[in-house]
């Protein structure tokens, strides 16, 4: 359950997260690209809108300026009466409905020498044109020091004033176009007065607010000083300038923008004068140095993009949920058979191969896995049956081999002392088989009353064939010894018999000796066996015997019979190569020298102790390492003829029989 759950959850998490990531990136990229496309489009739109609006305002202002200029130029040349001036202004107002009022104001004593100031002014008042005199109507500041008069006079150039409330004149918020007119005095041009034409700010506000910009966008007019002239928030009008807003918002960027505006530049900026983000395009109105700005609130501008993105996000989220569901179902359909298989193979793991596996319904990996499990169960069952049979067989062979070992052991004389009734010698032998059935053997028996034959042999190879060969060899040696009574001849005969039908090319080394118990004379012959040791009162040494050829492989091999005479106490020690070639864990050999040293130890030892000493020494040397060869020893001590133990350096009496 846990296993299937974890796969399902992992699949859901991985697939859903990956999809969500891809989807989110797509969504964001889409949103940003749409925005930037929209911004590009917006800039174009804003530029067109602001420019066209600025041009419309400019066109109106330019036409007013032209008319005013025309009046000024006519005043340069012609002298007008009071009535003439009024009718000049009146006809101008009639021809130009966008002009709110107009004045012709004279420099001190310029109209006539009697009157210091003279300034007729006509303006529209409730549908009618009203005529007043500005020299009388301005209560506190004479018209001479009003911006609309003073600035063009000082500059001697046409000027559009900053919008102002004309207190005492038109009594409205207006902007005035003023053009000086001149007279010539001694070739010098002197200002005679100023012609003015007023535009009400209301009319500009109407023109500008009539332009719809989205739902909440707006156009805005700024004066040459950055003063806000039109704005949806009327508290801004004539009170705030772009610079005071910048100061309040501590926004140096806005101030810099304002400076660009009043310098007559145009631009597209991400700024809306308020906290609400927006885009603004500003363009100059050339004739007045004012600025027209179009503001697009960002929220509204990107509303469509945002709602599209939200819809996409909604669809995406739904899709992701659906995807998670589908992944869960698909993964479940995979893990269910796996779960069934897992629960079915549980008993199989504990050895029950007869369980019913779920039926293979599809040809997919799960089906293949089920088939494989089924095959595996079958094969394992078969294998276990074979193994059981083989084991039974092996056990039988094992027991038979054990029996063979017992039989083999029973063939060797194992009762010691072997001849308690014969005091003239003592003999002891032992064999430790490396495998169950050894290839070594020894034997001793009397061939007549005074002659004891004893021998030691080592059949090449181990196991059953060696044991069988050993049986044959032992039997032959015993029977031939009793018949022939000479070791060399015995070996020669036995060799010929063995070589006769030796198809498997088996062979053995044999050392065969016959002791005359009365004289201590010992005759012996060697068929490839290790040289024997003679332990006498003078020490221990290896006898230098003729090696002779192995018994078995080649017929008609000659074997010499040699002889020595044992003195009282001499021990004749035979051994197989299992002793000298015993190995320890470091693969060192026990060696002939070590054997020699052990036997040198105590001359007075009994033969049995001697054999046991060698055995325990070999075992100690091997330190438990498994031995590959049988370890066999035969030791004979002659005690019977009164001749004392031979000196070790005494020449051996060896003669051919």
């Amino acid at each position: 359950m846990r296993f299937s759950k974890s796969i399902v959850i992992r699949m859901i998490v991985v697939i859903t997260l990956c999809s969500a990531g891809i989807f989110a990136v797509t969504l964001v990229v889409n949103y940003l690209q749409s925005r930037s496309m929209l911004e590009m489009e917006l800039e174009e739109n804003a530029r067109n809108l602001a420019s066209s609006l600025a041009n419309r305002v400019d066109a109106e202002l330019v036409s007013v300026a032209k008319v005013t200029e025309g009046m000024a130029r006519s005043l340069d040349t012609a002298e007008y009466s009071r009535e003439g001036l009024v009718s000049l202004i009146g006809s101008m107002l009639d021809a130009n409905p966008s002009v709110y009022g107009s004045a012709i104001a004279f420099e001190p004593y310029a109209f006539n020498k009697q009157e210091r100031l003279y300034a007729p002014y006509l303006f529209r008042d409730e549908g009618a044109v009203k005529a007043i005199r500005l020299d009388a109507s301005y209560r506190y500041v004479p018209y001479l020091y009003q911006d609309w008069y003073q600035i063009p006079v000082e500059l001697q150039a046409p000027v559009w004033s900053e919008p102002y409330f004309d207190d005492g004149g038109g009594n409205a918020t207006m902007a005035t176009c003023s053009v000086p007119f001149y007279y010539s005095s001694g070739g010098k041009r002197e200002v005679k007065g100023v012609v003015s034409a007023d535009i009400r700010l209301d009319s500009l506000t109407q023109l500008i607010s009539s332009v719809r910009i989205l739902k909440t966008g707006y156009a805005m007019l700024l004066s040459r000083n950055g003063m806000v002239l039109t704005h949806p928030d009327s508290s801004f009008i004539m009170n705030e300038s772009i610079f005071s807003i910048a100061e309040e918002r501590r926004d140096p960027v806005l101030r810099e923008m304002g400076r660009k505006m009043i310098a007559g530049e145009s631009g597209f900026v991400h700024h809306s004068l308020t906290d609400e983000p927006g885009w603004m395009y500003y363009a100059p109105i050339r004739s007045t140095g004012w600025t027209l700005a179009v503001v697009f609130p960002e929220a509204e501008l990107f509303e469509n993009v945002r709602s599209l993105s939200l819809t996409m996000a909604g669809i995406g989220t739904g899709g992701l949920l659906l995807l998670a569901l589908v992944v869960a179902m698909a993964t479940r359909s995979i893990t269910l058979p796996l779960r069934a298989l897992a629960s079915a193979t549980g008993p199989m793991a504990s050895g029950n191969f007869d369980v019913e596996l779920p039926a293979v319904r599809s040809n997919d990996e799960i089906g293949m896995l089920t088939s494989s499990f089924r095959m595996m169960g079958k094969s394992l069952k078969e294998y276990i049956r074979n193994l059981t049979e083989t084991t039974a067989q092996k056990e039988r062979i094992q027991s038979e081999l054990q029996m063979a070992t017992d039989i083999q052991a029973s063939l060797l004389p194992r009762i010691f002392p072997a001849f308690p009734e014969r005091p003239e010698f003592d003999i002891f032998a032992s064999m430790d088989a490396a495998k169950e059935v050894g290839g070594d053997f020894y034997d001793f028996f009397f061939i007549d009353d005074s002659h004891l034959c004893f021998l030691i042999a080592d059949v090449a190879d181990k196991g059953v064939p060696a044991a069988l060969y050993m049986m044959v060899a032992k039997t032959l040696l015993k029977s031939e010894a009793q018949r022939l009574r000479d070791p060399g001849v015995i070996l020669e005969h036995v060799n010929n018999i063995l070589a006769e039908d030796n198809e498997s090319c088996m062979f053995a080394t044999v050392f065969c000796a016959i002791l005359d118990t009365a004289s201590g004379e010992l005759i012996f012959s060697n068929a490839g066996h290790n040289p024997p040791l003679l332990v006498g009162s003078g020490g221990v040494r290896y006898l230098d015997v003729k090696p002779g050829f192995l018994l078995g492989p080649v017929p008609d091999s000659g074997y010499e019979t040699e002889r020595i005479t044992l003195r009282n106490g001499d021990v004749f020690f035979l051994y197989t190569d299992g002793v000298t070639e015993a190995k320890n864990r470091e693969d060192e050999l026990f060696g002939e020298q070590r054997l020699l040293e052990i036997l040198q130890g105590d001359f007075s030892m009994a033969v049995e102790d001697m054999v046991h000493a060698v055995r325990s020494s070999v075992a100690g040397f091997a330190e438990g390492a498994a031995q590959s060869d049988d370890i066999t020893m035969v030791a004979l001590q002659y005690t019977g003829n009164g001749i004392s133990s031979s000196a070790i350096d005494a020449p051996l009496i060896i003669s051919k029989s």
Partner: protein
Amino acid sequence: MHERQRSTGSLLFQAFSLMVVVALLSLAAYPSLLHAEPPFKKASLIPLWSPQAQFAGYYVALEKGLYRRYGVELTILNGGSGNSPVEALQSGRADYAVMWLTTALRHRDAGIRLVNISQVIQRSSMMLISRKSSRIDSLQGMNGKKVGLWDGDLSIPPLTLFSRRGITIRQVPLTNTVNLFLRGGIEVTSAMWYNEYHVILNSGVDADELNAVFLSEQGVNFPEDGIYGLEKTVKGDPALAAAIADASREGWQYAFDHPEEALDIVMKYMLRAHVPANRMHQKWMLNRMRDIIMPGTAFGKLPSGTLDRKDYHDAGNAMQRAGLIGGYPDYADFTWRHDAVQ
């Protein structure tokens, strides 16, 4: 006030005791007076211009009931074009007026007996401004240039400076806008630090594009706004004069301690008077008022409102030498201090 009374000794105490006895006797005669509100003295004050932060202290004192606390029912009249403070005093329309020391000295010389009851602004905030681009980098550079000066009393300090330095200028009358300067109609304009200078900055001209010269740094430090009354008014009710001076001082202190509230009050009076109101401009103005009312005591208490004797004589001397006045009165004659009188 009360400290002074105590310090004047036992004679005053006796007089006071006598007064108390008389008062108690009269109360006994007219028991109804016992329950009457203490009567407020009615008085009026006219600032030298329409409402703005230049007069924040007075509006704040009025709005926060400080004049009433001093027992005065004060009316602040509308200043501005056509409302000359001196005329208002002469005509009796106003009891007290805020005006410049130079103005007061000129009128005093013309025979109108004006008395200073409190000197509010301690230093001159007048400047001469030119654009760096016009290459006028010193006072001498203004020689022969078109310089915009306000008509009347406000031209006294710059004219004093020019005459002292022997500079001849082409004087162009200024009204109440800076457009003549901005459009290049004049090369130099006079400006108040707390007003026109900021208007110019907020018309898109950066401070580093301007050369601005403070008159006070050129040795013409004529103290500006003070509270004045006619001698007979002051002498007629010294307690009222003292109350107005003290309450006004408290009003200024309150305004500087609570600038946003003071701005709210000023803006309210500006809208009521239908004058263009820009809060940032008023804020600038209030901050500069603090600089010139409390010079060097940024976090301290308001100065006592005493006209500095040296400043007074400097201004009088300068004006006399410039031929603007024939002479000027004794300091003690010109100033009146309620604490000094008693």
